[in-house]
Structure formats: structure tokens, C-alpha cells
């Protein structure tokens, strides 16, 4: 049985992998990947029924990374779990690598190609509907960004998930309140965001998106209400885990210099992420 301490250590290790990948590739969505690391770690190491040896098992849980740009932590986790050789992470964003800057289903473990925002929830609705039609017992999880909430298609999908009573669907919002041009309320006011989801017929639960224990409880318990899809509003810090990146919009797409890279690794190692 994996403990909360194990999960925390794993998350720190994944953050280190993210920094290594971005530094090596000289490109990436560093802040976004650090923001969602704890959410993805909770899901992949303690919740999702997925098997790296049999990635296409019919009754597997589905995960869709709707905010496809935050892909580094996703790849790091899939590699760590053995969906593909972890060594391959070194090819991230290289010419010809399958580990490109947005998820694609040539990579074992990735269900669908994402990257264009506002698509993941509709796809997840389709997968959850298929589960209902087939009497499948699996659940569908999708992770969206908060900037992504401005996409109209999300609200089309939100309406349909409630209409079809998809209680096997869990949507998570990585609510770090930052997007590429600044704060989300500066770019496009989203609040009251929880109320909007409630009004669309979803069961809404707020959580600290870095509190692995609480997230684990919520994800394990979903659906909270029979017949209703679940929306987990995960309040997060963009760039979490590397102090100089936290809450700084530049790190949405920033690449560390050699000094910044070393500082980031040192900080993560201090937190239990092993040797630099």
C-alpha cells in the first residue's frame, strides 16, 4: 500500500524530472507542469486503474489531459510507471521524438491527442457515455486548466455531462489563477467559478491541489452524488516546488538558465527528491 509520504516523495521526484526535461529541451511549460504534479501523482500512483503492461485494457480508468501543454509531469509519470522506457524522457521535444510538447496517442498510456484547449471534457463525456452504454465500471478523469475555462466548448460539454448524469466522470480544474498573459481575473474574469459549475449541474468540491491526502480521499470517493458528474476545484500554485517560479507568470513557458536549473534541483533535492 502506497503511503502519503511515498506519494509526496514521488511528486518531488517527478518535479525534478520536469526540470531536467525542460532544461535539456530548452522548451516546455514548466510552471504548468509543476502546478499539476501533485494532482497527477495522486491519480496515477493511488487512484487510476491502469496497467503499464496492458495500456489498452478495456475496463481501465481513462485520463485525459485537457490542458495538454502541461505535459512534462504527465510524461515523467508515464515513464516512471513503465508505460515506456523512462530513459526516453531525455528525448522530450527532440526532432522525431514521440514525446512532443503536447500529449499524443502514439505514446503508450496517452488516450487522446490534446493541446487545443477546450477539447478534453467533450472527449471525456464521450468516454463516460461509452462506459455507461457498455455497463463498464471504469471512471473517466480529466484535468483542465483555469485559463482554459474561457473556452465555450467546455460549457457545452459541462451541460451534456449533467444531462446524461455522468457520475462516472471527474473533471479537475488546476486553479492556479495564472495564465500566459497574467492573472486569470486580469485576462478574463472566471469567478464565481465554483458556482458556475454548480449551476451547470455538477457536484463541486474544492481542495488544496497540493494536499495529496485530501485529493486522494475525494478522488476515491467520487461520485459524491449519484447521477451527478464531479468537479474538483483544485487550488494550486503555479510553479509549485521551486520557490522562484511560484506564482510568476513568466514560468508558464519559461526555461531555466544553468544557475536557475541548479537552484531548482537543489531545492527539490532538499525536499527529498534524491541526489541532483
Amino acid at each position: 500500500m502506497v503511503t502519503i509520504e511515498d506519494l509526496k516523495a514521488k511528486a518531488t521526484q517527478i518535479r525534478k524530472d520536469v526540470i531536467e526535461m525542460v532544461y535539456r529541451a530548452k522548451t516546455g511549460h514548466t510552471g504548468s507542469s509543476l502546478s499539476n504534479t501533485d494532482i497527477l501523482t495522486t491519480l496515477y500512483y493511488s487512484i487510476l486503474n491502469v496497467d503499464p503492461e496492458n495500456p489498452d485494457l478495456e475496463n481501465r480508468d481513462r485520463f485525459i489531459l485537457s490542458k495538454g501543454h502541461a505535459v512534462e509531469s504527465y510524461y515523467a509519470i508515464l515513464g516512471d510507471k513503465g508505460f515506456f522506457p523512462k530513459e526516453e524522457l531525455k528525448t522530450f521535444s527532440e526532432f522525431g521524438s514521440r514525446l512532443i510538447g503536447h500529449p499524443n496517442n502514439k505514446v503508450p498510456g496517452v488516450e487522446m491527442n490534446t493541446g487545443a484547449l477546450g477539447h478534453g471534457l467533450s472527449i471525456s463525456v464521450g468516454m463516460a457515455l461509452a462506459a455507461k452504454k457498455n455497463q463498464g465500471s471504469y471512471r473517466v478523469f480529466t484535468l483542465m486548466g483555469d485559463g482554459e475555462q474561457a473556452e465555450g466548448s467546455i460549457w457545452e460539454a459541462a451541460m451534456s455531462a449533467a444531462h446524461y448524469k455522468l457520475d462516472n466522470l471527474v473533471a479537475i480544474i488546476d486553479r492556479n489563477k495564472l495564465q500566459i498573459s497574467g492573472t486569470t481575473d486580469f485576462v478574463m474574469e472566471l469567478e464565481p467559478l465554483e458556482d458556475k459549475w454548480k449551476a451547470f449541474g455538477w457536484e463541486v468540491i474544492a481542495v488544496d491541489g497540493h494536499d495529496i491526502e485530501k485529493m486522494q480521499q475525494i478522488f476515491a470517493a467520487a461520485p459524491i452524488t449519484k447521477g451527478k458528474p464531479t468537479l474538483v476545484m483544485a487550488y494550486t500554485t503555479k510553479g509549485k516546488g521551486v520557490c522562484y517560479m511560484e506564482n510568476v507568470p513568466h514560468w508558464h513557458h519559461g526555461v531555466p538558465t544553468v544557475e536557475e536549473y541548479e537552484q531548482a534541483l537543489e531545492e527539490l533535492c532538499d525536499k527529498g527528491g534524491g541526489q541532483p
Partner: protein
Amino acid sequence: MNKIPNRQIICDTLVEFGKDDQDIMVLTSDSRGSASMGNFAKELPEQLIEVGIAEQNLVGIAAGLAASGKKTFVASPACFLSMRSIEQIKVDVAYSQTNVKLIGISGGLSYGALGMSHHSLQDIAVMRAIPGIDIILPADRFETKLVIKALLTNKGAAYVRIGRNAVADIYESDSYDFQIGKAITLSEGNDLTIIATGEMVKVAVDTAAELKTIGIACRVLNMHTIKPLDEGAIIKAAKETGKIITIEEHSIFGGLGSAVAEVVVQNHPVPVRILGIPDEPAIPGKSQEVLAYYGLCTDNVKKIALQLLK
């Protein structure tokens, strides 16, 4: 004259096969009536997903269902399906290679009097530029059935465009050799070739018949599949007949004519005339009136043929 529209045939075929295969699913965007899917909804209610007037969600849900093993048929007006959902078509369907068949109903100028918002005259051009999706325009009801049967057995993405009204039969039955990507020669001849797609095939056949009465042997190719394109049939026609006319219910940019011209100029250049809708908001009116206005009728195609033969 045939009274059964192609959309009715699609519904009937999907009901026929859907009864034995619960993975066959139809998705509509408040379009079950206009798509003639009422009987599917009645016979197989568990296999119909209604998403409301939300075309992006329509295609995204279809992709999610398809990624979970369903054989999805999306039926929505071509004008909206090919434009409002185009990013979902590009990413969730073509790029992700999901088994989604997009049925663009009331295509071309079917909604002639409703104006440019309801015309779909750019859909082929847009779809052609996206890798990973077949584009098919059946010529009549028999071919429509064969298209749907073929799509039921392949796993790729496809866009099928049909018109709203019943169209005259080209074939006598559905017992002929139909293959996606293989043009059908409807009339032999070596004086010139008319290549047509969808409901314009009828104009090509009628024109060839008229030309025959004055001693001109016109080849007619039914190019039901625009992608993958039967390049061999086009090159052969260029070499053997030396002159080509294309007819399509679509903008003159980016559709059948463009596709044919791309093949001809790079392989065996010969004169090509591209007949379609010019680069303007099409004049409103009943579809037959509008088609005639733009010369997509037998009289005009015959005139163009005679000019080309001078």
C-alpha cells in the same frame, strides 16, 4: 423519379446494421429531423446521443465514444459541422485517428434560399487540407448505401457530404463494385472527360448523353471519393482524352477541381475547366435555380465542352 433522399437511406442502413451491432451510434445536434434520423431514434434509442445545438461538443463526444470502441456516425448540417467543429475534426478525429464518420447533411446549396450562413461550399476545401480523413460524396441513393456499408467496416475517419432532397438515380441498384478511393467510369469516350462528384454526377452523365447525340464521345468519371483521390484515373483521362471538365457543388477553390488540377499539372498537363461556385456569397434561391445560375447544368456544361473541343 426517385423520391427517397440520401439521408433517409443513411438512416435505414444504420438501423439495419445497428440492430445487430450495439456499438453503432448516431450523434445529432438537434438534427435528428433534418438528418432523417427519426427512425433510428425510435428503433434504437439507446444508440442515439443528442447533444443539442453544440457542434464542437458533438464531435468531441463522438471522438470519446469512438476511442472507447464505438462506431460513431455524426449527423449534422454540413454548413455547421464542417466549420463550427473543424478543430475537433482536426485534432480529436483526424489527428487522434478515431473511428468517427461525419455525415454532413443538407450540403452544398441544399439550403439555397437561407443564405451563405447555411451554404456549405467550403467544406471539401477545408477537409482536404487535413491529413487523416476521407472525403466522400455519393452520387445517388444506391451509392449512399454502399458508402455507409463501406464505412461500417473500416476504422478510419471520414466526412460524407450529401444534399437534402431526393436525387435522380445514377445506378439501377447497389450491386456494383464500389470502393472508397476508386473512381467509377460511367461513360466511356476519348474526346474529353467530365469528372464530377456527388449530385453533380447526374449533370455529367446527362451532358455526356447529349454530346453522344452529336457524335462526341465523352468519358464520365464519378469521383465519389475526393480523398484519397484516384490519381490514376485522372492521369489516364488526361492522357487518353486530353481535356477535362470538373463539376462540383462547391467553391471553385480547393474542391474537386483543384484536386484534379493538382494531379493534372504535375503529371500530364492538359486543359482543365473547373465548374463550381465562384468566389462570392452564392446568390440565394432554390438549389436548382442557383446551380443553373452558376452554370452547373447540362446546357452550360455542354457549351463548355464544345468550346474546349474547338
